[in-house]
Each structure stands twice: as C-alpha cells, then as structure tokens.
C-alpha cells in the first residue's frame, strides 16, 4: 500500500511549523468524539421532537446541531493536521478524510435547516438526516480502522470461529482431560498420535491446526485449554508464521502495519522487519539484547520507548519470552522450530517427543543414517544446518571430548511433560524420578530406595523414555538381559551400574546408547572382554572401572579407540609422607 505523499503538504507548512501542526493534530482523537456524540444527540432530538409528546425538545435541536457541526469542522481541521505526520495508510486516510469533510458540510447543512426552518423542507430534512447519520457511522468507522486496525471490530468474531475449527473435536473440557489420562501402549495420548502420524509420516510440513498462538496465550488462562496446549506442545511449528507473526499482528500491526507505520516501521512482513525503521535495524539475529524488537518490549513501563505504548494492550510475559527465544535462535522467518509450554525456549531441533508414536520411531530406525533421530528434523526444517553438526563431529574426534556436551544438547531440546499418573507409578515402586529443573521436563531416575528390584521396573521407564536422561541402578541386582531394556532408553547420558550383577555379555547391549557419556561399572565382574564392547559407545567420556576384573592392557586398548576417554580405575595409593609429591593414581 502507498503512503501519503507529503510533497504537496510541504508547500503549505514547512517542517518547523509541522511539528506544532502535529502536536495540535494529535488532539484529533480527543476532539473527534465530541461531534460524534453531539451530532448523534442532535439527530436524535430532531427525530423524537417530531413526536407530539416530545415537542418541547424542538428548541434544543438547532442548538445541539450547531455545536455538533462546529465540532465536526474543528475535527476536520485537527484531523488534517494529524494526517501530515504521514503515519497512516493513504487509502484509508483518504476515505476517512473525505467522509469526515462531507460530514462536516452536511452537518452544517442540517443545522441550517433546523435553525432557519421552512415549511416545505421537511423532505430535505429527512434526506439530510439520514445522510448525516450514515456519514457519521462511515467516517467514524474509518477513523477507528485507522487507529485500531482494519479488522479490529471483526477479529474476535473471526478468531472464535477459527478456534472452533482448529480444536480437535474433543474441545469439551472433560473429554480433553480424559484424553490426557487415557494412554495407549506407547504412553501417548491417542488423539495427538493421530495428528502427528499423518503429518510427519507423509513428510509434509506440519499443519498446525490449533497452534494459533492467540490460543496459546489464552490457554494459560484456563484449565481445559491448558491441557490442550500441553497436548500440542511437542509439535513442530513454522516459528515465525505460527508463533511470532500472530503476536505482532495482535499487538503491533495497529501502529506498525499497513494502516500506520509509526517511526517509519512496519512489522507486517519479513522484509519490513528486516528493513527496520527510522532508527535503523530492529532485529539482530541470534542476539535479542541487540534487537530493539525485543528490548523495547522489556523496557520499564514508564519508559518512553516501551512497546506497546502504555495503555495499549501489552504482550504477555510468555509472548515476550517467545519473541526472545525466536530471536535468540536466529530470528528466522522460514524455520521450523518447536516450542515448549512454558514458552521459554524455541529449539531448532525437533526431537522425537513423548507424543511421537511408535511407528515414527520405527521409521526413524529404518532410515540408514548416522543421525538416527533426524528424520523429523530433516523433513521439517526448511533450512538445515548440517555445517554445525559436522563441526561437532570433528571436534569430538580430534580434541578431547568435552564432558556433558551431549547432555546439555538433550536438555536444550524440548520435550513433553511426564504424565503425573505415571510418576505415581514410579513412586509406588520407590523409584525416584526427579526433574532437572523447573523449566524442563527432563528427569533423572534413581533406584536407591527400590526394595525388591524386578526387571519389569525397567519396562516402565520406557514411558518416560523421552524425558529420562540419567539412570542410577547402583547396588540393585541388575542382570545382563536388563541392560537390553536400559539400552533402549535413548536419551540416557549417565548410567550408574556399579555393584550390580552385570557381566561382559550385558555390556554388548550398551553400544546402542548413542548419548551415553558417563558409565559407572565399578564393583562388577566386567573383564577386558566386556570393556571391548564399550568401544562402540562413541560418546562415552567418563568410565569408572574400579574393582572390576579389567586389566591395564584392556583399559589401554579402549583408550586408544575412544580418545580422550577418562577412565578411573581407582585404587588410591598415597605416597608416604616423607617421599616427594605426585600421587599414584590408577
């Protein structure tokens, strides 16, 4: 859309006086409501005073209409001055301006008709009455559209409709809750399963039915939709289109959009956002602190630059976090990301989530790739970043591998919540499942309190497969076959098997644990043979072997293959007090 050309206006007012003009012009929204009210009253009086019962109101008609007409003329003048700022959509402004001017003229005419009454003009009176009323509505509407945005009146109605379509048929709260509880064999809510399957298996871009962020925002306000949100959260999203753009549309477009572009800034298209405004760029990809698109949101409310300005509807904290996360992750306009319910992180990697059906996992496994979990990622991310991946691999093989890298990566990815009912199950079995933090759903499990260990307990862990990162089975009678179950837990980075009953054969299963970083098998019957199996654990960084039947030669062999592997074989022997420094360790 075109902007108002200012050239002609400059002939009339130079820039200096334009400042004053605009200051005065800004009174337009204040003054304009006077003629609206007064004219309405005048027109009302004119109409009702025709009825005999209200005859006594007749003298008030012309008085009221006079001030109404005067007010509309004043409004026109102020409105013109305001239009000089050029912040407004030319098309709409044109309509508003001319309906306003015509209204002022007609209103004056109506006033004249009533002020100087002539018997034969009653038809003209009627026509101008209708004309004024219509103009009042039309001009007022255009004015509103200029200030609040064109769809201000209709957006709520529209949104409701959209929501109705968007939500799965189980929009009824009781049903949704039920849905959450009903878990199929994979521990997945049935409903979501269906959604995911169709999207991802067909390799389509995810169609986000109900992930309208407006809805997400409103979700935090009520319980049923909250559950719905939790249900949806694991889904990948075109981050800009589905998450950011609606926020901007809702809160920013009215001043920085097609109708108005305050500070010469528009936020209604990726190009415009990249371009920035009169103060330069507003988006520095990857750095929210340098992006005024974010920083202005978090300025104190009383700061002049705080956006949206005081009095306008503000972004919710979650929305602000979302903007932050989006910029932090590169501020891309075409990348698929997934977001968490807490709204704090947007991650580029799509990991198989708790809601991912079994069939997808098998699909993942069948793909002959070294990155077994990347199928979802591949098909969803428009711009891949393989370069980064490669770098990491190089780093891992050449330099000593850094502790906790893998775990940190996993913890950054987002994941669904552990079902509280499942947690109860673990509590009953005395398995401690504790979270990594308040803003994460990842957990560690500890069997320290387990009384009558049974390998069936490990099957239950499959339910929290996506969330489980550390597992401590120390001192339990864990046998070789149990390790098969353990190895199927894909996100385990730390595994404690010390003083269990495992033998060499069991360690062979651990090669299927791509993320394993730390393994503690001290006090077991492992020999060099078992140790050799561990060479398949490419990410192993720390290994505790004290009290096993391994030999220095076996350890050395493993060290050669897994470079940088820290092996603690224990056996502390201090130097005697009188001898020189340096301990003998290992």
């Amino acid at each position, binding site marked *: 859309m075109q902007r108002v050309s200012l050239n002609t206006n400059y002939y009339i007012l130079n820039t200096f006086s334009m400042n004053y003009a605009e200051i005065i012009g800004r009174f337009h929204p204040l003054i304009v409501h006077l003629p609206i009210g007064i004219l309405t009253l005048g027109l009302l009086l004119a109409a009702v005073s025709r009825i005999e019962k209200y005859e006594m109101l007749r003298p008030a008609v012309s008085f009221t209409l006079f001030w109404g007409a005067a007010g509309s003329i004043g409004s026109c003048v102020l409105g013109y001055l305001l239009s000089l700022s050029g912040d407004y959509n030319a098309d709409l402004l044109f309509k508003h301006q001319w309906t306003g001017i015509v209204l002022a003229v007609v209103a004056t005419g109506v006033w004249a008709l009533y002020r100087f009454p002539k018997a034969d003009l009653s038809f003209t009176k009627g026509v101008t009455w209708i004309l004024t009323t219509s103009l009042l509505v039309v001009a007022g509407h255009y004015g509103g559209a200029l200030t609040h945005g064109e769809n201000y009146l209709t957006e709520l109605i529209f949104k409701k409709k959209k929501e109705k379509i968007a939500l799965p048929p189980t929009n009824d709260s009781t049903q949704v809750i039920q849905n959450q509880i009903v878990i199929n064999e994979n521990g997945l809510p049935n409903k979501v399963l269906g959604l995911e399957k169709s999207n991802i298996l067909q390799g389509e871009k995810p169609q986000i039915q109900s992930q309208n962020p407006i809805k997400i925002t409103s979700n935090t306000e009520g*319980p049923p939709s*909250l559950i719905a949100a939790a249900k949806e959260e694991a889904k990948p999203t075109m981050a800009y289109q589905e998450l950011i753009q609606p926020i901007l549309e809702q809160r920013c477009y009215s001043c920085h959009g097609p109708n108005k572009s305050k500070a010469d800034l528009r936020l209604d298209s990726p190009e415009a956002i990249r371009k920035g405004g009169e103060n330069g760029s507003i988006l520095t990809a990857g750095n929210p602190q340098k992006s005024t698109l974010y920083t202005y949101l978090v300025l104190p409310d009383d700061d002049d630059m705080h956006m949206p300005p005081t009095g306008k509807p503000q972004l919710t904290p979650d929305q602000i976090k979302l903007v932050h996360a989006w910029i932090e992750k590169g501020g891309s306009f075409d990348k698929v990301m997934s977001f968490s319910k807490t709204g704090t992180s947007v991650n580029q990697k799509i990991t198989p989530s708790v809601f991912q059906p079994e069939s997808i996992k098998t699909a993942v496994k069948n793909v002959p790739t070294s990155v077994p979990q990347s199928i979802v990622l591949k098909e969803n991310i428009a711009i891949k970043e393989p370069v980064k991946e490669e770098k990491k691999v190089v780093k891992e093989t050449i330099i000593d591998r850094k502790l906790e890298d893998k775990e940190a990566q996993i*913890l950054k990815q987002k994941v669904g919540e552990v079902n509280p009912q499942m947690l109860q199950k673990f509590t009953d079995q*005395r398995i*401690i499942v*504790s*979270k*990594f*933090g*308040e*803003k*994460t759903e*990842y957990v560690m499990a*500890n069997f*320290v*309190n387990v009384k009558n260990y049974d390998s069936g307990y490990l099957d239950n862990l499959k339910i929290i497969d996506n969330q489980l990162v550390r597992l401590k089975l120390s001192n339990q009678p864990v046998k070789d076959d149990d390790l098969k179950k353990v190895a199927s837990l894909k996100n385990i980075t*730390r595994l*404690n098997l*010390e003083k269990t009953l495992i033998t060499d054969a069991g360690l062979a299963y651990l090669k299927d644990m791509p993320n394993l970083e*730390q393994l*503690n098998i*001290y006090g077991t019957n492992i020999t060099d043979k078992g140790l050799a199996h561990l060479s398949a654990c490419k990410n192993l960084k*720390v290994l*505790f072997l*004290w009290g096993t039947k391994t030999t220095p030669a076996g350890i050395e062999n493993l060290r050669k293959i897994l470079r940088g592997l820290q092996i*603690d*074989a*224990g*056996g*502390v022997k*201090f*130097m005697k*007090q009188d001898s020189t*420094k*340096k*301990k003998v*360790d290992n």
Partner: protein
Amino acid sequence: MNIFEEYNHKMNRRDFLNGSVLGLGATALSQLLPSGLLGGEPKLPHFAPKAKRIIYLFQSGAPSQLELFDYKPKLKQMFGQELPPSVRGDQRVTGMTAFQKSFPLAMGDFTFKQYGESQAWMSDLLPYHQQIADELCFIKTMHTEAINHDPAVTFIQTGSQQGGRPSFGSWMSYGLGSENKNLPSFCVLLSRSNNYDQPLYAKLWNNAFLPSEHQGVMFRSGDDPILYLKDPQGLDKTTRRDMLDALANLHKQQIEHTLDDELNSRIAQYEMAYRMQTSVPETLDISKEPDSVFEMYGPNSRKAGSYAANCILARKLIENDVRFVQLYHQGWDQHGNLPSEIKKLAKDVDQASAALVLDLKQRGLLEDTLVIWGGEFGRGCYSQGKLTPDNYGRDHHPRCYTIWMAGAGVKKGTTYGETDDFGYNIIKDPVHIHDFQSTVMHLMGIDHERFTHKFQGRRYRLTDVAGHVVKGVLA
C-alpha cells in the same frame, strides 16, 4: 485453660468451614496456577544441578590459612617486625589483641611448595592434600563480618550472625528433599582434637522456622549413633509398628483440630526414626570396610568418632544418596602455641580429607558430589601474645581466609582470589560468606534469590539480602 486448649476451642465450626473452603479453593487454584505462586513446598532445583549432594568438612575454630595455603614469604622475611599500620588501617581486632602494644609479624618454620599441574601452593603440613592439588579449587579470599567464633560459624552455616535461621543443610533438605527415604537428608558428624575447644551448638544444624524434619540429625560415634533409636528389650517390630500407626492416627485427628503443621513433621520424624532403626546401623557400620579403606583414610580411621572415621561415614552416607553431610572438626582455635598445635590438627584432617576426595572420585561420586573444606574465618598475620623464634599465636582474622572445594561443577586445579603480601587484606576477587553460599546453591541448581521461606511476614533466604554467584570457581 492453657494456651493450647484455648487455641483448640477457637477452632469452632465456622472457622473450620472457612478454613476448609479456603483450603479446597486453594487446592483447586494451586492446580491451575504456576507452582510457587501460592507458596508451599518449593519446586527445586530451579535449573539443572551440577551437584546433587554436599559434604561439608567444617574446620571449626578457624584454621590458619597462613600456615596451610596462603603462602606469604614476607612474613618470614619481616619476622618480628611490626605489621605496617597502613595495612591494618582502622579495622577492628578482637579484644584479645586490641590492647597489645605491638603487632609483630610471625611465621613459623613451614615450607611451602607448589603442587600438581595447577601449581597450587601448600605447606608441608598437608602432604596428602599436596597429592590431590589438581582436584581442588582454592578460594583464598573468603571474608566474613563476624570476628568471634559463635557468630562466625552461625553466619557461614545459616547466613546470619545471630541464631534462629535454618542451617545450610536444612535449607538444602527443605528445598531438594531426600533421595534416600531411610536416612535423614541432613546428617551431622562431630569430631574434635582437644578436650577443650570452642563449643558447637545444635543451633548450627537447626531447622529454625523450616519444618522440623529438616533438622540435621547428629550421629554419635560408637555403637549407638542415635540415642533411643533401638527398641527396648522385649518390644518386637510388630508392636512398634502398631504403636506408631496408632500414634499417627492420634496425630492426624489432632491436625484436623489444630491445623498445626508441626504435627505433620512429627509424624514424618517418627516414621523416619522407624526406618532408621534398620538403615542407620547398616549404613554407619564401617567394620565391614576392607582394610584398604582404612589404610587410605589413615591410622585414625579405625577409631570411632575420629575425623577420619567420620570421613568414611560421610562417604557411606553420600553413597546412599544423603543430601547433605556436615562434619565438624574442632580444635583449630590456636591463639597460642600455634606452630605445634597446627601440626596436630593438620595431621588429624590431612590424609582423611584427601582420601575422601579420591575415594569419592574412584566411586564416581565426585561427579555429582561437592566437597567443601574450611572454617569460619582466618587468622591474623601478627603474633598474639609473646613472639619467640619458635612460638607464637594468631588471633581471629575475618578479612581473608582460605577454603577449598572439590567435585561437581567446581573448576578443579584453580586458585581463586588474591590477598596482599601480609595475608591481611584482599587485593583481588573477594568472596563474601553470602557469595560462597549462593555459589554452592548455584551448583545445587538453586537460584539463591528465589529460594525463600515466608516466616513472620517476611521471606527469608539463606543469603539474606546479599550474595553473588562466584563464576570464577565454576567449571
């Protein structure tokens, strides 16, 4: 009518309904609102913790940093000369030395060398510490506001110089809970070198205003670690169980009347005691440890109640996922005869402390256990009392002292902070008690500013109103 009866009578029907309506409403609301908004149990950790457990080897009485870690050759060079007044300025000293006419610099015959790849300075008093130099992170610039033992110990343990605040371990127990349900989450072990020393009080491991199950449980040395834990002769397990069930029932009935939360704590503690009847003798029995362990922890480790034996116990408790083990070793308050006294104390703790670190390491426990070693303040660089070539004493010195940490999340093989040539003032990177506390909490995954408990209309936290996480010691 006593005050308790009065309270009970006040709970009439209307109060009960009010209470329960609010209760129901609050329960429903708490399901909807983000956790923490309505108070209640904190949901910790805030973020992924590096450390899950702590062993705090508290050196009570204040070990002299100058003889152990903070090498100041100038003290020997200027032996007997006055401490320049400009160094001390108008800072206060204790009443014990305030009226001394002179402040002669003192340093005994101790040899300092650098050890390990990290080249950490240590004296020949610590031959075993020397061997674990690369595991340790020294903070040389700890400083406190208190100048006497009781307020200073209370300060570092509770964040306030005056009593009445919960101990560090109580906070951790309250915030993070216990992993092992059969052992208390906060355990306390005491040992001492001399018969006479600065006393320690139960207030140091008190829960204060936190629920009382978070109080530190002190284990005595010997056959009976917790008094009255065993069933009397003739009382079998079933009878005990029945008795506890009946008692719990009575307590629950009482709760309905009084809504007194302390009763819940009481139920929890009875249950804990019941479980401890088996778990404690099991865990605290070190007689089955192999000889190699005793060898490693040193000759005293077979002696129940010694620091070395307590270190083995600490390791065993940590192995069983106890959250916080607090050891105290008393006897470091060397106002006189320091050169000979400090040798005894160093010998008490040197080998066992080092052995504990390595023992945790070989068991893989150092990956998520934090070990802290240190006292409540330091000791001054000038002699207290008469200075002779081989004898002197040192007075309290709150303005700088050294502690070390090892294990989870700590940058090993580091020395943080610097003091001046006299070991009197800090010249770089000071670490206040509250900074230290917030750093340790950070390692446990806790934002110290958000971990509060509301009591008497105010939100309290361990770090009171101060504290910054010391990033320089984090791995």
